[in-house]
């Protein structure tokens, strides 16, 4: 199924619940671009809509799944990975994608993330990182950069941030990557690779919150924000490039981890079968 070549050209409208469009997100919100890239990747991988399950948490990112014309599951705050784990174990035939946000995934659901990564169940986790809790009024999240203003950091954030990719990699995820929404075609390719990867794949999407975060921090309108992504990133392929010293804080993008580790679902089924056999059942 995954390797079937796409039979015709991609039209996102084939994958959207048209009755709910246009979606609720603010003008210029990067989550819409991420959704587009996800749909294109699903199309590229030739996954039928009935074979796709999208599990979302709470927040702006949590609303993304509802627009996808597939099996979608809007769950509790921080717990989409837990719901997805149950779903994938019960229905290993489904391609299960988790769409979550920086607050959902790293704060409320931080524990679920590290243990999902550790188990290496075949899930694809898309973390849309816009550095803020947008839906609840713009509170600081674990990825809010230092000096940024939010409704809970009125004089500028001072906490260090999480590097979500490093966290997922350290916890044992077998595929870890990051891309910015500005590079939507590259993002699509990255998501497609994550979808094809057997095991826990973690993809961090650098997204823009234009209305809440961008406005409060004077980051410009949507085009300025998305253009600045390009100046802020450093593709993995340029890791040793000579211009690196001039952009010391530039964000690495690309695939950081891709390793062959035993997949949890297959292990669990084999384990259960062995025990049943031993018990003579």
């Amino acid at each position, binding site marked *: 199924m995954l390797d079937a070549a796409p039979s015709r*050209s*991609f039209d*996102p*409208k084939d994958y*959207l619940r048209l009755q709910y*469009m*246009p*979606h609720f*997100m*603010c*003008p*210029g*919100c*990067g*989550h*819409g*671009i991420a959704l*587009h*890239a996800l749909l294109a990747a699903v199309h590229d991988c030739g996954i039928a809509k009935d074979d796709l399950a999208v599990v979302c948490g709470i927040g702006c990112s949590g609303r993304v799944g509802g627009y996808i014309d597939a099996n979608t599951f809007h769950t509790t705050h921080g717990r989409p990975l837990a719901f997805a784990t149950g779903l994938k174990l019960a229905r290993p035939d489904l391609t299960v994608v988790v769409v979550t946000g920086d607050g959902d995934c790293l704060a409320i659901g931080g524990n679920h993330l590290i243990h999902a990564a550790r188990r290496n169940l075949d899930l694809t986790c898309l973390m849309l990182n816009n550095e803020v809790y947008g839906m609840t009024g713009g509170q600081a999240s674990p990825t809010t950069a230092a000096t940024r203003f939010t409704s809970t950091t009125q004089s500028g954030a001072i906490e260090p941030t999480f590097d979500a990719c490093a966290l997922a990699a350290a916890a044992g995820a077998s595929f870890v990557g990051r891309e910015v*929404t*500005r590079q*939507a*075609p590259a993002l699509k390719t990255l998501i497609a690779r994550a979808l094809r990867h057997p095991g826990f794949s973690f993809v961090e999407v650098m997204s823009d919150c*234009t209305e809440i975060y961008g406005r409060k921090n004077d980051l410009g*309108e*949507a*085009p300025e924000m*998305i*253009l600045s992504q390009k100046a802020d990133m450093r593709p993995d392929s340029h890791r040793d490039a000579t211009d690196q010293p001039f952009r010391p804080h530039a964000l690495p993008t690309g695939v950081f981890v891709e390793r062959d580790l035993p997949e949890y679902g297959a292990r669990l089924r084999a384990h259960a079968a062995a025990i049943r056999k031993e018990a003579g059942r």
Partner: protein
Amino acid sequence: MRPLPNDDFAPAPWPVTTGMNILVVGVGGQGVLMISKAIALMAQRRGFAVKQSEVHGMAKRGGIVFSHVRFAEEVWSPTIAKGEADMLVALEWAEALRWLDHLRPGRGVFIADTRQIVPPFACRSRKAGAASAYARETPAEIVGRHADGCALDATGIATALGDARAANTVLLGRLSVWLDYPVAEWHEVIDAIVPKGTREINRKAFDAGRAWTAPAPDEDDAAAPAVAAPMPDLHISVAIDPAWCKGCTICVKLCPERCLAMEGPVAVVATPAACTGCRVCEWLCPDFAVTVKNEGVPA
């Protein structure tokens, strides 16, 4: 020092046994220096003094590379002056034309690959299928009129043999028709300078170049470089659905051709004819409001 053949004398019969000035030109990555090395090595084996000088510094993939090879009983200057090259070996068509004036008038031999590598600055318009400012001269206009020699699709020949990178060796094989030393000796020279794994293909390419014959005149046109590379018939269109557009202006500000504009709260297509179908707007619209149709080019 014995002087090199000079224009004032009657044309000497090929091959010249007293010495030769050979200019090898092309663009980065084609193997200009490998050809010059082969010629230099061959000349050395034949007991000539050889001087070779080159410019390749800026040429990492795509920039100009040229190399002067001079050999005679004794060689003083390492460079070849305008109008004093006995042979011009060009791995790229526009480079062949650029260096044409270095050939000895009326007597120089011209050996060129007809493949075009269109440099980015020759692309005046980003629109797919637009004519470039690439040289318009065809091989038929050059060979036999301004210079003796041949123009062949060496890249095509090398591709047919299995590796387009061996095009330079095809031209070396062609050159060996004039620099007529035993084929076995040429093979030894090639073996000495190419990586071990590519000896086989390079020998084959050399033999193919040496055995090349000019196509019949009516086929000649097919070998001529096309003035504009054939492009698929494109059907480009861009449309914005005002019902879904939220007026974020991303598409307006990021379209490289400035095709789109704001009209009140929503974006509209202002100059549809300028659209190249690059899909930047379609990919970056967060609201799925832009649809680009670009048939003929993969999405």
